[in-house]
């Protein structure tokens, strides 16, 4: 019996129709001939926490609002939001109008457009710690630039990172033992546990005058573990420690940016970063990232030669302006927290009705969830897979993302799916029935 046959057998005992993905599978076989692993990186089934792969579609055909459709015509409520960029809903009318108008004028031109200045002005007006803005394309561009600025400013080599934090795919952002990483790539990296201020202070004192940068996400949202918010006085103490030792405090707000606070996640947690990195939600899916910084680092940022072929493209700038303006107008962080409360509260209740415990952690606009009844996470993986097969796109071990296009009807449908998925899981794993 094939895995697809098994799903059909399972379907007979439950209410909802489950999806199948024959076209996705065909395309994957085609892709495997010419693309490493068919779909690589964080959108791939392996790295993207999409297990088992047969439960997930591999390729999308279109997207709109809170949904995407796969190549087999299945519709999914998208709780990954392209892993973050989609914050206003796919194809948001205002954003796309602004992007299209700019595209008619020009995009990748020999000289930058006025949109770059307007976008920088908007970010400086919006982001609490920003006295200037610099644009690139990916979150990793921004974090790499932050590290370079810190080293240029301080003349020091070392940087402190929080264990499990993710700052992109540059070799310095990886760990020794990861494929292709050599010791020299990470030899100046130091690591501390999240929320352990004393360990951080000890580390700083062990390396006097050597540390250029402390880079961290605003809260701990590593994969596979419950997310953890900062202790009440954590960031204020870290801020003071960095100031005392001349360490540049860089916040990686690539994932959280504009979902927690339009003024920056440092503002949300009550401190001021020296450098802050944005991407994902910055332009609702248009390709741009930003690094913002304090006045004292502006000259140093200018001294670092840092650029790319498409970094001055004006269409993403126009899209970013429209995105930020709309996020402000609708108070997106507040709206996302309300949506998150309804959704996660409902999911917890549905789980409880089946005798399961669903733990919600992190911040609601990008919540992390884990069924705690099973130390192996096999139960959680089975439930996630069953939800996906019914049209709700979750993944297993990553935080999820919300967008403002989600409706109460979408949430109600999600809860129905969650309920049916728990029924299916009890049949699939009778030890939990």
């Amino acid at each position, binding site marked *: 019996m094939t*895995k697809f046959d098994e799903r059909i057998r399972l379907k007979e005992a439950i209410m909802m129709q489950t999806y199948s993905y024959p076209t996705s599978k065909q395309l*994957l076989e085609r892709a*495997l001939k010419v693309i*490493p*692993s*068919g*779909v*690589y990186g964080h959108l*791939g*089934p*392996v790295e993207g*926490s999409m*297990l*088992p*792969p*047969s439960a997930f579609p*591999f390729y999308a055909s279109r997207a709109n609002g809170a949904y995407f459709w796969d190549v087999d015509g299945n519709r999914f409520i998208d709780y990954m939001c392209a892993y973050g960029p989609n914050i206003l809903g796919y194809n948001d009318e205002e954003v796309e109008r602004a992007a299209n108008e700019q595209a008619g004028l020009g995009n990748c031109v020999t000289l930058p457009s006025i949109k770059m200045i307007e976008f920088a002005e908007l970010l400086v007006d919006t982001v609490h710690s920003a006295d200037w803005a610099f644009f690139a394309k990916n979150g990793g561009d921004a974090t790499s630039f932050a590290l370079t600025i810190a080293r240029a400013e301080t003349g020091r080599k070392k940087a402190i990172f929080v264990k499990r934090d993710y700052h992109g795919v540059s070799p310095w952002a990886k*760990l*020794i*033992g*990861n*494929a292709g990483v050599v*010791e020299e790539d990470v030899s100046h990296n130091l690591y501390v546990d999240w929320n352990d201020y004393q360990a951080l202070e000890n580390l700083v004192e062990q390396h006097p005058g050597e540390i250029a940068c402390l880079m961290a996400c605003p809260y701990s949202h590593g*994969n*596979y573990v419950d997310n953890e918010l900062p202790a009440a006085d954590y960031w204020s103490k870290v801020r003071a420690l960095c100031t005392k030792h001349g360490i540049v405090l860089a916040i990686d707000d690539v994932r959280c940016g504009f979902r927690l606070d339009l003024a920056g996640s440092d503002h949300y947690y009550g401190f001021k970063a020296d450098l802050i990195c944005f991407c994902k939600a910055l332009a609702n899916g248009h390709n741009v990232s930003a690094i913002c910084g304090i006045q004292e680092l502006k000259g140093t940022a200018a001294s670092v030669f840092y650029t790319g072929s498409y970094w001055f493209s004006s269409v993403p700038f126009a899209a970013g302006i429209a995105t930020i303006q709309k996020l402000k107008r609708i108070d997106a962080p507040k709206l996302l927290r309300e949506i998150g409360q309804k959704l996660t509260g409902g999911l917890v209740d549905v789980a409880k009705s089946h005798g399961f415990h669903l733990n919600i952690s992190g911040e609601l606009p990008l919540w992390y969830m884990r069924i705690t009844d099973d*130390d*192996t*996470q*096999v139960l959680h*993986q089975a439930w996630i897979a069953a939800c996906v097969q019914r049209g709700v796109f979750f993944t*297993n*071990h990553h935080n999820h993302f919300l967008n403002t296009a989600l409706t109460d009807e979408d949430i109600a449908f999600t809860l129905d799916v969650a309920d049916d998925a728990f029924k299916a899981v009890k049949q699939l794993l009778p030890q939990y029935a």
Partner: protein
Amino acid sequence: MSSSHTKAAINLYAILRNLEELCEVDEASQGLIRGKQQSIRFSIQNGPSATLVFRDGKCKMTEDEGSSSIKLYFRSTDHFNRMIDGAANPIPVKGFTKLGFLTNEFTQLTKRLEYYLKPQPELLGDPDFFRQHTGFLLHTAAYALGCIANYDRVGQEIAKRIPDGVVSLSIQESGQQVFLEARSGRLTAMKSTSVPPRSFMIFDTVQSAGDLLSERADVHELVVRENLLLKGMMPMIQHLSDILSRVPLYI
């Protein structure tokens, strides 16, 4: 630890350990040790050590230093590694009257092991042989993972990241299963365990397992096609994968 030290550990604890399995599954090998009561101590200066015990028609490796009928001394890990490669001889320091077992039956056993571990290409077309060959590869990989995690400097760094618990590696078609237990940054391979695994790597067929372990297949392709099913605590498997990628440095 030096790379020579890690390689010696792999040669001893992962390669030679296969004699245990060989004497279980290979009739010719069983015939060689039938009725024999011998033990060979491999003692490496500043390196790992172990004893192969042949008793009651079985072979068992133990790291404990007990009495042994034959003791072989190696001046260095390099010396031992060269012996495994057939480029050096051991120094017998005990059991001179029993060296016949070493030069006769034991030598034949190691040739039999090589027959399975480094087969002639035409043999791989025989399904029964391929199944045996893959079984030895799976054992070797599991024990080599443990050696790299515990001896290789980079492997040690990776192993620190592995959550505690047991990983099950199995082949659904043949039913073969081995386990790796991670505990406080150390990794131990074993053929059975009473601890329920926290994560699972399940090959659907012997072919899938053999192809991956022989580096003829891409692990990502096997995963997306579900020839290799992964479930449970994925960080355990992801970090093991980083260690596994270091195996070719030594074998």
